[in-house]
């Protein structure tokens, strides 16, 4: 490794740790540190500024794809660093017009400060069923947003009932921390732009897990951050893997489109729903008991393992995992190969040949544990439930080889600890909406 590469990895790791820890001291350390080094790291490059014209931004909060770079195969590449802030509305009863204006003003300040892109900042603001409970009127039928619940027979997650979740994402850890501190009112200027307002007086924003959750995704980041519980010392997380489990995911053809996950009608037309689960990863058996062929079999499908379809982390798959082609043989695979694949099971949940959820998940070291924040957007939460039910494969346990969590995709290694459901209104209604905004 060349010295500059080594410094680069130290710095990336440092920035990721700063995001995980958070707060003004982490922000100062992060800014100070990148200023100390005279190499060409991305954080030394100025962060692109945003726009004074909010109408130039897409009306869908979840319209990120157009603002993300693509890889060589046309897959959208998610921003590297992420923060989720689970917050509660501080007032009693329904929010006031002034509070609504404060929230909108704070969000527009961020949009002025940062370009709407992964080089700048992408964010969404979501509202839970519990938030809408404060209003006399219910949500319209066009919004499918039940309270969160356990979705398999073998999980017992804590259910997130905070009013609001803010998701911040950026390739720049410093931009992310700055945006967070600005929303909290701890700093007045972000990226050289003055904040007109902050959320501190309206929302009770968290400092620590579980209210504050962090993560990362992208080539090399998991391998650099593998010194956490859940990853055995013997594990060889591939350097080029974007996720802890050693494979690419989010292939374009295996994702719903943004159009497909958008609520088509009603007062929240242009919005979407967001499900976020926190999953603890326990990869000892994944990396120690199993070889690459077995991992391919359980992540994708037995046929992929047999035919050598997946090279390394799966870069060669292009824009399609190909697991859809394994769906028809799932019962046969259960009997003859003795296992079924995660992607193979999941691919059973499709509408018009296309998946119904759009994954934007990322890994995490929150609590010093290897974890995954499985964040997905979909038109309605029932789309997520249908996908999760297909993924769980409990219907396949009639075959003796397949048990609830053994030989059944990756369920032996993943433990769902929390679930939450949120509505991401269209941008026009993103500030403390009523159930029937006009």
């Amino acid at each position, binding site marked *: 490794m060349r010295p500059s590469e080594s410094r680069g990895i130290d710095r990336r790791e440092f920035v990721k740790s700063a995001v995980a820890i958070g707060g003004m001291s982490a922000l100062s350390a992060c800014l100070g540190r990148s200023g100390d080094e005279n190499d060409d790291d991305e954080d030394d490059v100025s962060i692109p500024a945003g726009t004074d014209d909010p109408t130039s931004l897409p009306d869908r909060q979840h319209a990120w794809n157009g603002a993300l770079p693509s890889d060589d195969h046309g897959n959208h590449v998610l921003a590297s660093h992420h923060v989720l802030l689970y917050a509660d509305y501080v007032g009693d009863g329904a929010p006031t017009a002034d509070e609504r204006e404060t929230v909108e003003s704070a969000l527009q300040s961020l949009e002025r400060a940062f370009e709407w892109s992964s080089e700048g900042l992408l964010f969404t603001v979501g509202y839970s069923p519990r938030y809408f409970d404060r209003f006399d009127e219910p949500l319209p039928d066009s919004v499918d947003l039940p309270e969160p619940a356990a979705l398999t027979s073998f999980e017992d997650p804590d259910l997130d009932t905070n009013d609001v979740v803010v998701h911040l994402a950026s390739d720049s850890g410093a931009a992310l921390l700055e945006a967070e501190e600005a929303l909290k009112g701890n700093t007045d200027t972000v990226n050289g732009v003055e904040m007109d307002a902050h959320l501190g007086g309206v929302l009770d924003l968290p400092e620590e897990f579980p209210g504050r959750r962090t993560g990362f995704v992208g080539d090399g980041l998991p391998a650099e951050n593998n010194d956490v519980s859940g990853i055995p010392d013997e594990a060889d997380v591939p350097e080029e893997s974007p996720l802890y489990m050693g494979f690419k995911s989010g292939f374009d053809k295996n994702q719903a489109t943004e159009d497909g996950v958008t609520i088509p009608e009603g007062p929240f037309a242009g919005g979407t729903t967001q499900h976020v689960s926190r999953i603890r990863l326990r990869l000892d058996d994944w990396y120690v008991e199993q070889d690459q062929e077995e991992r391919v079999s359980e992540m994708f499908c037995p046929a992929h393992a047999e035919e050598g379809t997946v090279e390394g982390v799966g870069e060669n798959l292009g824009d399609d995992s190909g697991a859809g082609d394994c769906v028809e043989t799932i019962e046969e695979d259960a009997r003859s*190969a003795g296992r079924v694949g995660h992607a193979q099971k999941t691919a059973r949940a499709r509408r018009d040949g296309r998946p119904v959820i759009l994954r934007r998940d990322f890994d995490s070291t929150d609590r010093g544990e290897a974890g995954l924040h499985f964040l997905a957007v979909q038109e309605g939460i029932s789309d997520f439930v249908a996908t999760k039910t297909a993924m769980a494969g409990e219907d396949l346990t009639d075959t003796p*080889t397949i*048990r609830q969590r053994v030989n059944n995709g990756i369920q032996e290694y993943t433990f769902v600890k929390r679930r939450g459901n949120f509505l991401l209104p269209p941008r026009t209604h993103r500030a403390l909406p009523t159930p029937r905004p006009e």
Partner: protein
Amino acid sequence: MNRRTFLAAAAGTTSAGLAGCFGLLETRTAGQPPVLSDRPDAVYHPTHVEGMKMEAMGRSGDFAAAVMYSYPHRFWTVSGSTVTKQSIQSDDAAHIMVAVWDPETEVVVPDAGVSIAVTKDDEVVSEEVIYPMLSQPMGFHYGANFGLDGTANYTVEVDIGGLSGVETTGSFDGRFTESTSIDLDLSYSEAEKENISYENTPDRAGDQTAVSAMTMMDMPLGIAPSADELPGATVGTASTGDAEFVVQAVEADRFAGGTHVAVSPRTPYNGMLIPRLGLEMTVARDDETVFDEELGAVLDPEFGYHYGGDLDALESGDEIELRVTIPPQVARHEGYETAFLSFEPMTLSVA
């Protein structure tokens, strides 16, 4: 980088933190004899016999559970027809076992989907799905080797997903499907572990016999009822793959109607029930096939775990053929890993 090294780095110090403490070498496991080179394709006496330490029992929902531990040991997992040896890892401290049964009837519940989370002072030490396993002294249980954080009081949260792929009948109908969780104390000590009995058995190793069942335990074992104890009439007992299959015919309201043919596979010597295999049955009468189906797994209060099929009636002279299509998908302790893997069709005539 963890929080401590981050803060150290941010503060401009070079401290790398304290070095970790590593587990002491396990004298017992280090002394384990190697796996025999000439094992029979059958049940055999293992190279050594280990005791175990019962730690705690509890109940919640439809289930009772107990947690025990012993020395870490090698075992074999079975996926389809593939048997894979799982060796002891350097940081394994103990083999933790969980037994799950119905507190009302003391019937052992296989296939309950068990994982455990081990915590110490509310810090997570480990969380794993543990395998359904067969051992000669214990029969069916759930287990895995675990690394622990030294001598300490641990809490083992036993998470039971509930039965999957198994039909319940009679008073069991609708039971064992709800998931539940049972917290059990595990006080682990290196010294106490060394007091667990351990015996190398070179004189018996490889013999076609089995270590006796631990029937003295205050805990139900997954021993299949003998043919005499089963309800209905015994059609016969067939044997293949070194497993015994007791075939019973019964008429009872709790089954679909007509005659319920119950096939109860068990190990030789100890009669431990063998769950999670694929089994087909054909019944021929004169030159006609009157039944030709896969048998489903059933948990019944009287038969226990068995494989069942329902037909109008069995008649004298009927020829029953049983075919194992998938070997039992349970991990094996030493002495069982070469048995119950390859089966011939079995035939029985109805008297």
